[in-house]
């Protein structure tokens, strides 16, 4: 069956090549045959179909336990549940590249389907540039990381190696695909941007399409990054969720530039400014997704994520150089049409605040990139290899992220073009006072470190600005519809009319919640190490922990030592939960892992790790983390994703109403 998969992959490569070449040839003409355009559209869809067949071919081999195939042998075995046999498809480099190819092509196919409504002049080059991503990634897969290879052995292997036990959980099933849906989706805005440049069709259409598709990819990317952090928190046993590891940073970089883009496109749509700026952001975002996967697979920087050092580094670098060079050439070629319609008129305008937002995000991006690449730079320029770690990233990013939070309070409140001074005073005095009071209250309550106090005060400030905006919006709406300001119908009308604005408020509110949670879990974390015998207790915070006993268990493919620890509330000695941290030993791989016992609570998480047991097998050494407000981090992330969906998905009825409103605008003035 893998011959079929391999054939389908080669077919997809050929089709993508046709799409790119034919798309460019057709796009250069001044008149096009509609049949050619339709054929190109179908080629784009056909690439996805072929890749789907290739992926199915590989999946089939996994599900039917075909261990004659090297990749299947390496990452699967008979006793694995079938769901993990499927996730093992992307358990290694080759299969994950194939998944990436398929997801890119699937996005292109969706765009192709929707493209019947898009401006005709864009289409030929759009299809050409859409197909460049699948073409590149299929090339890498086919020639460097091909999963369709046989084990060159006369033996038929009875069983496989198996997926590493740390990867056999539900997060392996959802984190990589979600993250990839974020990364690959960012190839679509790139295609729109380059198609606009190549065809010369540089009106607002392309920027509008860029916004919509970037938002979809951004939502997936946010979900993917948070899922990764959540998985790390649950599995890795060090009580944290983000280590500024190069692979983690690789997923953050395009997220930062995509967030910047989502804000600055609004300026271009409305004011005709920042055109070259946005083009650069789109290309940079796409380049960062390619760079991210290059970073993860080439082994040029050390990380705890093991790398197979392969030769694919230079292929990626060549492609990256090509992308950037082509973009620069086209921008220079089209520079006349890319001149701004006007300039920013006032510091106290939303345009200026959005520019500031972009600059902060780009600064964070630069800092993270610098931190990731510093070993390479330092060795190249000084001969000595140096690195920076968590202290560097925190030192630079904490002030920058807090500035971003501050801007979140200013941006939505301030007016376009120029705000009146009286409005600024009215809008910001109360929130500023509120933040200041929070700061005083915190210091009085004993929290005196600078950054936590600043963070909480800023979050309160922003919260008050959001509520202020809501109040102003509701009363304006109430004035129009002659209803009461705080009635549900007023709110419903307001949200329907300005879905994007209030969806953005939901996202910002999610960011606030996350900021508070991160501040609390970083600044007020409690760590304790202690050893307990049966019946002994340990007290910390508002809890007491008592060891009941230590048990040994044998499972199908691992042996476990488990401590049964009773968690009680100190206040009334009631039992809250029995925590069961474990140490597991997998004889097949000769590996030990820790299974964290976690109790998530609204006020704090109780996170317990079994470090070891003594020789008698009755005393347990434990490490305890108390992470305040940790769970609110995940709640905040969910809010961000909900907000993203609210902004991205148009309500059908609203879309028609918008169309009618537009036409009315045509006739009235």
């Amino acid at each position, binding site marked *: 069956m893998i011959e079929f998969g391999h054939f389908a992959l080669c077919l997809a490569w050929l089709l993508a090549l046709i799409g790119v070449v034919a798309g460019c040839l057709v796009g250069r003409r001044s008149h096009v045959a509609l049949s050619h355009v339709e054929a190109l559209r179908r080629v784009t869809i056909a690439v996805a179909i072929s890749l789907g067949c290739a992926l199915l071919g590989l999946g089939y081999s996994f599900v039917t336990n075909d261990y004659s195939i090297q990749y299947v042998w390496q990452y699967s075995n008979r006793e694995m549940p079938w769901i993990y046999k499927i996730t093992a498809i992307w358990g290694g*480099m080759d299969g994950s590249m194939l998944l990436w190819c398929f997801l890119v092509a699937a996005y292109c196919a969706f765009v192709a389907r929707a493209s019947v409504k898009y401006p005709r002049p864009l289409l030929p080059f759009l299809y050409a540039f859409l197909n460049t991503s699948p073409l590149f990634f299929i090339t890498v897969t086919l020639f460097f990381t091909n999963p369709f290879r046989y084990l060159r052995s006369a033996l038929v292997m009875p069983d496989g190696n198996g997926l590493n036990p740390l990867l056999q959980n539900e997060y392996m099933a959802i984190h990589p695909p979600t993250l990839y849906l974020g990364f690959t989706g960012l190839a679509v805005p790139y295609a729109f941007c380059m198609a606009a440049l190549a065809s010369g069709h540089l009106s607002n259409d392309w920027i509008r399409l860029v916004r919509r598709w970037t938002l979809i990819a951004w939502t997936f990317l946010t979900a993917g990054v948070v899922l990764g952090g959540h998985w790390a928190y649950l599995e890795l046993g060090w009580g944290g969720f983000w280590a500024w590891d190069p692979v983690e940073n690789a997923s953050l970089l395009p997220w930062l530039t995509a967030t910047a883009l989502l804000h600055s496109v609004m300026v271009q749509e409305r004011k005709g400014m920042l055109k070259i700026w946005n083009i650069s952001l789109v290309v940079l975002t796409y380049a960062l997704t390619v760079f991210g996967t290059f970073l993860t697979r080439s082994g040029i920087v050390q990380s705890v994520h093991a790398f197979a050092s392969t030769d694919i580094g230079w292929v990626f670098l060549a492609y990256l150089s090509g992308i950037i060079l082509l973009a620069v050439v086209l921008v220079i070629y089209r520079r006349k049409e890319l001149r701004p319609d006007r300039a920013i008129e006032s510091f106290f305008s939303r345009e200026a605040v959005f520019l500031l937002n972009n600059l902060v995000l780009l600064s964070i991006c630069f800092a993270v990139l610098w931190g990731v690449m510093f070993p390479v730079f330092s060795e190249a320029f000084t001969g000595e290899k140096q690195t*920076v770690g968590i202290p560097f990233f925190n030192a630079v990013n904490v002030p920058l992220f807090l500035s971003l939070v501050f801007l979140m309070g200013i941006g939505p409140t301030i007016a376009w073009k120029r705000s009146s001074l009286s409005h600024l005073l009215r809008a910001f005095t109360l929130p500023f006072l509120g933040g200041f009071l929070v700061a005083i209250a915190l210091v009085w309550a004993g929290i005196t470190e600078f950054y936590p106090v600043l963070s909480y005060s800023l979050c309160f400030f922003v919260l008050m600005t959001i509520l202020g905006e809501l109040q102003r919006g509701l009363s304006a709406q109430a004035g129009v519809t002659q209803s009461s300001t705080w009635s549900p119908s007023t709110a419903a009308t307001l949200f329907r009319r300005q879905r994007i604005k209030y969806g953005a408020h939901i996202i910002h509110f999610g960011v606030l919640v996350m900021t508070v949670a991160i501040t609390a879990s970083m600044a007020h974390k409690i760590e304790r190490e202690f050893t307990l015998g049966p019946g002994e207790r340990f007290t910390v915070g508002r809890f007491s922990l008592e060891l009941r006993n230590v048990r040994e268990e044998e499972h199908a493919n691992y042996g476990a030592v488990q401590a049964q620890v009773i968690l009680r509330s100190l206040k009334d000695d009631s039992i809250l939960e029995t925590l069961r941290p474990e140490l597991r030993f997998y004889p097949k791989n000769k590996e030990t892992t820790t299974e964290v016992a976690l109790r998530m609570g609204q006020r704090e998480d109780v996170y317990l790790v079994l470090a070891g047991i003594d020789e008698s097998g009755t005393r347990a050494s434990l490490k305890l983390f108390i992470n305040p407000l940790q769970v609110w981090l995940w709640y905040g992330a969910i809010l961000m994703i909900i907000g993203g969906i609210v902004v991205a998905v148009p309500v059908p009825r609203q879309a028609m109403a918008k169309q009618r409103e537009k036409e009315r605008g045509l006739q009235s003035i």
Partner: protein
Amino acid sequence: MGRIFITLVSLFVVVGGVLVFQATRGTSSLVLLPSELVTKAAANDLPRIRIGGRVADPISYQTEPKIVLTFNITDPKGGDATVPVVYEGLKPDMFAAGRDVLIDGDFVGGSVLAAKLQTQCPSKYEPVVPGAMPESIDKERQVG
């Protein structure tokens, strides 16, 4: 492109540059292999280093009265250089002799006092363990 645009961009270039430069100077650590550390350090102490190596016996892990892990590391590619490491913390998952680790810490008094210890995560890009597969495996797939 407008005075305000240029002002804001310049401001950020300066502020960002200063921030990054200061933070780098204050927190950077030297990256070394055990063999490099042995030649470089001799009798001197070296603060703030990152060292990557392969775990070697003897490994000792005590959990009472404090959690302390002691082991040696050697160059991943082989060689005689051996450096002792002391880490006060939980034994990370997958930690075993023969596994590669990344350590952040200080070189004091002849051994590395590790502040942070990470074993190579069993991610998708795990190198093939030689000997675990039939010999006729693609040679390109093996990592030295």
